[in-house]
């Protein structure tokens, strides 16, 4: 039996209206349940690739399928988490988490039940009535994650979600994300520029080269699961981080100067 890959990117190029080539002939397949990180220097088109998969922008060339269909038609399978928490400031935590379900017309009692369950899953039940401006950066991101998960997505797309946070909040949220991943088995495409974060989270890392963006290396990460805070202290973790860092540096050194 041939299974459809969860995300299939086939010889995809993306040219912006200004003429610059953001992605050049990128091919990548993500299987169900994989946690794949896109890693690379700025200008490698990693965020662009994520947006193409989400169906928010079309590819210039090549095809992308999500669960075998066009990304724009597969949006209900996916949730997108942005770099900033993008919470609506006029809505409470609870109302922000329920936003997606509300837009999709889910009945009020069902909505409330799902939102409450999700809030307790990410430990936010005490903040349900707060407005975003009362929350710290880490808390806002937690709300953003809850909002993405409440619609029970099969695929999670994350665009440098923890880049603006301090290291301790980031580590804690990474661990939490893996805990939820173990429970809910999504397929994840995760954009980051942090090697340590990518190694800690991923089952596979895709290193992209810049100008134009293309796949340079694919590195499977075979650290044992479940990964916890202790994983970061292991020698195997250090080795992987060193290995990936070298690859990243070689990609940067080989790249032509940014225009």
């Amino acid at each position: 039996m041939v299974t459809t890959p969860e995300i299939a990117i086939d010889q995809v190029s993306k040219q912006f209206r200004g003429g610059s080539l953001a992605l050049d002939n990128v091919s990548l397949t993500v299987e169900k349940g994989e946690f794949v990180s896109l890693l690379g220097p700025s200008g490698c088109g990693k965020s662009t690739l994520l947006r193409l998969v989400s169906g928010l922008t079309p590819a210039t060339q090549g095809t992308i399928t999500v669960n075998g269909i066009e990304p724009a038609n597969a949006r209900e399978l996916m949730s997108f988490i942005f770099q900033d928490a993008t919470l609506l400031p006029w809505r409470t935590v609870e109302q922000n988490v329920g936003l997606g379900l509300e837009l999709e017309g889910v009945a009020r009692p069902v909505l409330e039940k799902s939102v409450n369950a999700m809030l307790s899953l990410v430990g936010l039940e005490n903040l349900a009535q707060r407005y975003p401006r009362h929350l710290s950066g880490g808390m806002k991101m937690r709300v953003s994650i809850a909002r993405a998960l409440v619609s029970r997505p099969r695929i999670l797309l994350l665009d440098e979600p923890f880049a603006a946070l301090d290291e301790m909040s980031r580590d804690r949220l990474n661990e939490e994300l893996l805990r939820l991943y173990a429970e809910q088995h999504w397929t994840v495409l995760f954009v980051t520029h942090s090697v340590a974060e990518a190694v800690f989270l991923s089952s596979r890392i895709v290193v992209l080269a810049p100008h134009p963006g293309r796949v340079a290396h694919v590195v499977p990460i075979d650290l044992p699961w479940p990964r916890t805070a202790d994983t970061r202290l292991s020698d195997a973790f250090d080795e992987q981080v060193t290995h990936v860092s070298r690859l990243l540096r070689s990609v940067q050194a080989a790249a032509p100067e940014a225009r």
Partner: protein
Amino acid sequence: MKRHLWFALNSLIVLGVLLLIWQSGVWLGVPPYMLPGPLVVGEAVVNRFPSLIRSLWLTSEAAALGLGASIVVGVAIALAFAQWRWLRCLLFPYTILLQTVPIVAIAPLVLMWAGNGLLSVALVAFIICLPPIIANTTQGLISVEENFLHLFLMHKATPVQVLLHLRLPHALPHLFTGIRISAGISVIGAITGELFAGSSRVGEGGLGYSILYASGQLETDYLFALVLAASALGFCFFFATMFLEWYLLHDWHEANRSDIPE
């Protein structure tokens, strides 16, 4: 609480000093038809209280009508501007033109078209109030961050949902900035209108009309009272809208924090 009292006390001291400077002009021998002292003006306020209140009422009625209409029409125009870019590019320069045309120059025209009375006065206030509402609300409607739009699109939101749940609430603080600006100038617009429209009711007039009348009769003390009443009215309009803004937005909007700034 202590800081509140301190501010109130300071304001009172400033008021006292100002009154003292004013009164010293009288002591120095400036004739009362040029500069009536604070006591004389106070006397005029007390003696002519009913007609002063009547004038205040007529002017605030016209100003409120003009302001209210400008909010309704301004938001409608801003919605159209936000929806159709070409319309915005085409017409936006003219809303600025509306703002730069001196209101005293328009008022006689309005009077010619709409005749003597409340309608003319309210129309002049409306015209002067409209541009800030349009400009600020349009800005609020179109300045929504791209990621928020993406978020809504990922959930397949309809254009109506984007408008109701994203653009309109996002524009609300901007709308209130516009209303706050317009509230202060609505009174100026109404008074300007009354200078030309005379009375908005037969046999009695608003502040603008009474100011003209008092200056014609050389009733300088009453003129002073009217000027003070006019600025107090603008002040009230301004604070009423500011309070409304605070009441509606302080839960979530950064600029409307409930605590007192340092």
